[in-house]
């Protein structure tokens, strides 16, 4: 295996918000995420809405500085502050957003959108060469040359997402953060975009950080999976291990909720009790304990550290292989 291009250790992002009358509350949107990204491979991050997936994306893309933890890209450490200043480093991580309708500037033609990153980061590239590169990139993502001079409102969602991918690739990044890149698209378009991404990954040796809540897409797309709950990774490991042998009760519940196309197969669906707690008042101990059917006194008091070699999980009472859900399952 090649050396990792990005190493994140204990990444944390807290937000301070006003809770009225001068009181401050701290939202722990991201709490202690450690992972590695390797060229040519995909790490998928899954979890419910509000679990910190998008915060992770913003921190990795250096849109926001982390509140704690360390990140190294290609061996260069990214500090808590000075990060965003280093242009060369910044150009190595690019992002594709979820909503292709909001992520393209409506006043810029596709060509201008594609050339902007080059203009800003590589002023030494002549304008003719810049245009040539943008046109080449258009072909690479499966768009036609005449699309160069058009405006975003003339495109469908899928085509726009291709433009967004093309823009992200203009600076030859090593890492692409994909923040739910297909969840706003039609099912048929989704697979086209996913295939494009797989294709590009093979050709350009990109490392993907793929954020999604769609487990069937993740199953198809990822090499490694990280499951998050309330800002904390609760289980991470190779895709096969996590999908066939989930150890954390939350992962298990999440997997059991994936819709299946086979009506005859017996569904062992685990229904979780209660709501996702507010990220402002994360329960003490293991954040999952109020909803977990295996919770004990220990879970309410202490947070289980994430442990394991390749397949890591944070649980005092991991689900044993072959164990059948919780008592209420069925």
């Amino acid at each position, binding site marked *: 295996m090649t050396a990792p291009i990005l190493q994140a250790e204990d990444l944390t992002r807290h937000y301070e918000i006003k809770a009225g009358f001068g009181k401050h509350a701290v939202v722990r949107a991201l709490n202690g995420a450690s992972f590695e990204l390797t060229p040519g491979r995909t790490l998928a991050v899954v979890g419910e809405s509000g679990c910190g997936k998008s915060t992770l994306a913003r921190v990795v*893309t*250096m*849109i926001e500085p982390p509140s704690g933890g360390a990140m190294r890209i290609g061996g260069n450490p990214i500090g808590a502050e000075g990060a965003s200043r280093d*242009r060369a480093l*910044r*150009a190595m*991580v*690019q*992002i594709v*957003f*979820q*909503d292709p309708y*909001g*992520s*393209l*500037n*409506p*006043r810029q033609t596709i060509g201008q959108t594609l050339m*902007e*990153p080059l203009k*800003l*980061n590589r002023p030494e590239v002549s304008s003719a060469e810049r245009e040539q590169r943008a046109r080449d990139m258009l072909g690479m993502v499966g768009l*036609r040359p*005449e*699309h160069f001079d*058009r*405006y975003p*409102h*003339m*495109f*469908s969602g899928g*085509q726009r997402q291709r433009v*967004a991918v093309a*823009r992200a690739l*203009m*600076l030859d990044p090593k890492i692409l953060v994909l923040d739910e890149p297909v969840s706003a698209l039609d099912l048929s378009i989704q697979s086209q975009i996913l295939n494009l991404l797989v294709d590009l990954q093979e050709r350009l040796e990109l490392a993907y950080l793929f954020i999604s809540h769609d487990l069937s897409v993740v199953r198809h797309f990822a090499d490694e999976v990280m499951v998050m709950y309330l800002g904390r990774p609760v289980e991470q490991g190779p895709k096969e291990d996590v999908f066939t042998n989930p150890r954390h009760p939350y992962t298990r519940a999440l997997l059991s909720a994936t819709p299946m196309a086979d009506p005859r197969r017996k569904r062992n669906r685990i229904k979780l009790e209660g709501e996702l707690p507010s990220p402002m008042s994360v329960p003490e101990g293991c954040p999952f304990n109020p909803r977990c059917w295996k919770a004990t006194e220990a879970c309410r008091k202490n947070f289980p550290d994430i442990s394991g070699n390749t397949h890591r999980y944070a649980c005092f009472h991991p689900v044993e292989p072959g164990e059948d859900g919780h008592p209420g399952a069925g």
Partner: protein
Amino acid sequence: MSDATSDTTAYRPPAPPGPLRDFWNSFRENRGAVIGLFVFALFLFIAIFAPLLAPYSPSEQFREHLLQPPAWSEGGNWRFPLGTDPLGRDMLSRLLHGARYSFFIGVVVVGVASFFGVTIGVIAGFAPRWLDTLIMRVMDIVLSFPSLLMALVLVAILGPSLINAMIAIAIVLQPHFVRLTRAAVMSERTKDYVTAARVAGAGRLRIMFRTVLPNCLAPIIVQAALSFSTAVLDAAALGFLGMGAQPPTPEWGTMLAEAREFILRAWWVVTFPGLCILITVLAINLMGDGLRDALDPKLKRS
């Protein structure tokens, strides 16, 4: 709106409707706006070519033709189609030249007010909270005065002249631009394309004025058009109160003020400047409403 065009035509795709064409199509739907546009175009034409169109100089006096009525009424003379004023100056020439002043006032006032207003608005939209609050409270204070009163006070301080009146009106109008720009910027700046520009390496200034501002222009253009008429009207009001253009400038408001004492004896000296102001302001407002319909998608009729 034209998603299909890119797929159906393989060889020679027809030029997709550009933003301008699109704008014209929706603008054309509003008949009042089109009429307003034509009247405004006429106004602009007169303002530019006034010296060629006017039969006499606006300050030339004809001593033997004082207060002569318009040509079609009793005692009129086709030498002076709209009559003459108390000093024997040709009304038509003065009104044509007056268009120049009104247009000049409108352009300068709207230009100054929108330039500063938009700049301050963009800064407020991106500023940290304390600076934003400071700017907006100052703007609220300016807005809390009745606009004409505020302009009057400013002119009283600066001294009555056309330039000072324009400065005063610009200051009075500018908070509207600040508010509007700030609101548009705030809703626009959280969008993903702004973040994308940041990831692409765009600096703060570039994001403010190159990425975000062009997407906020629609309401600002509408506000500029409507402010144009307010500027013309306020300048006329200040002129009428003796605080704007000074006689013998053929400014419409000043002309009204000069003719005030003859209102019962010679109806034409007050009616025509008043009509000019009315028609100009009405036309610009109609045009501004049409602009809003065409540019602001939130108000667009479906």
